[in-house]
């Protein structure tokens, strides 16, 4: 379970996340939508314990990320937006390293690694050096890394970014399947994914949640039945003139 309350992050004078509150229960898949720069990645970085929040509280399975980061991080599997990897390692070498850091050893480690390779369809590149992988395979390797320890909470920042249509489909199915037993929070710019994978979605704009509901509720709210229309109604567009609040 993820419980976020009044989460705020300020970079200098810029308010990236503004008193955000939400909870994700076990068995739920929450989709995080929002325009570029809305604060989705920043929120995820705080929830995973990478960035310290300016204020607010985050609890993962009852453990506070701020007070007890190491214990909270054990429950989380995280795919960062840029899918960072150690380029000098092979796919298997990297997954072995990540599994060891997660405290897995011996046969448990072996099984976890081969399971993750299978789940993310990495067999064909398992022995390949990471710096020679294509973008999609890099992304899948990083996704595999987040599944190794069978975490209760999965936080995936644009998990389908850079994947081919087949793999996009596979990953959505995977998110759906994992979501039955886990807590999943993932961000995306592809609105069809809301229906394909989410049980609930929120739209974030300028660090605040502007819409929250199930895919059906969201469609209803839009009036036209199209999520794109709703998205365009509730979020600020860069093409619009700046509001006086921003100009100040």
């Amino acid at each position: 379970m993820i419980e976020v309350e009044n989460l705020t992050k300020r970079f200098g004078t810029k308010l990236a996340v503004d008193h955000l509150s939400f909870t994700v229960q076990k068995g739920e898949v929450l989709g995080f939508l929002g325009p570029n720069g809305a604060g989705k990645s920043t929120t995820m970085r705080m929830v995973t314990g990478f960035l310290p929040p300016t204020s607010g509280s985050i609890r993962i399975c009852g453990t506070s990320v701020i007070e007890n980061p190491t214990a909270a991080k054990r429950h989380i599997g995280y795919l960062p937006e840029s899918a960072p990897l150690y380029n000098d390692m092979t796919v298997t070498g990297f997954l072995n390293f990540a599994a060891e850091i997660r405290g897995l050893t011996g046969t448990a480690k072996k099984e976890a690694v081969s399971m993750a390779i299978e789940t993310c369809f990495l067999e064909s590149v398992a022995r390949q050096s990471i710096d020679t992988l294509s973008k999609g395979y890099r992304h899948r390797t990083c996704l595999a890394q987040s599944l190794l320890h069978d975490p209760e909470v999965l936080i995936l920042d644009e998990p389908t970014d850079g994947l081919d249509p087949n793999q996009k489909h596979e990953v959505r199915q995977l998110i759906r399947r994992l979501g039955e037993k886990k807590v999943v929070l993932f961000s995306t710019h592809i609105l069809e994914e809301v229906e394909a994978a989410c049980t609930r979605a929120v739209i974030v704009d300028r660090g605040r949640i502007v819409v929250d509901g199930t895919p059906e509720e969201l469609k209803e709210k839009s009036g036209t039945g199209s999520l794109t229309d709703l998205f365009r109604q509730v979020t600020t567009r860069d093409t619009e003139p700046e509001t006086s609040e921003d100009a100040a």
Partner: protein
Amino acid sequence: MKDVWTIYKRELGSYFGQPIAYAIIVIFLLLSMVFTFTLGNFIEAGDASLTYSFFLYLPFVLMVLVPAVGMRLWSEELRSGTVELIGTYPISLWSVILGKFKAAATVWLIAIALTFPIWITVNWLGEPDNLAIISGYIGAFLLACTFLAITLLVSAFTRDQVICLIVSSAICIGLVFATFDPFVRQYSKTFSPEVKDAITALGVWDHFLSLARGAFRLQDVLWFASIIIASLLGTSAILSAKRS
């Protein structure tokens, strides 16, 4: 402790899985031998100690080569974004710092150990004080570790390896030359004795040379250890501050 080991293995694997460690070890061996046989007059000096033929030149070699080994430690991690992975794994920042430092120190342990033929040669040529030579080797390794800790600290500031290399070499060169005798003689003319003493107290020569001569003093070891620990603590502080 287990986390330190996991990080250590990964870092060491990445040093020896790429040409960098081999290249630097070979260059180090070549340079230190060139100095020993030319400036050090190793053959003619008839001096069966390594102090003035071999150890004396090591700081000059190490001050540029050590940063070349350490520069990637955090810079690469910041550039590729893997710091975000490391930062969300359930391990302490401190064990990552220690693992990285120990891996790079191992590269230097190997490099310095590979100069052993010169030790064999002096034993074959004469009757050296082997305890003094061991003390000198400890001094050389401590010096490498000190430069390494400084490089690690600098690499936490920047995602650019070249900047890290230039800045940390500059610091190490400064530390070496600030107390190098010919320079001390120069600036002791202009500065008051207090200033001169303050500068020499900061530099490496006093501490390194006493170890290289075989005078194994606790204060020298403490001097190296305190710079290393301060740099590692600084690295941890910088990385934590960078995130917020």
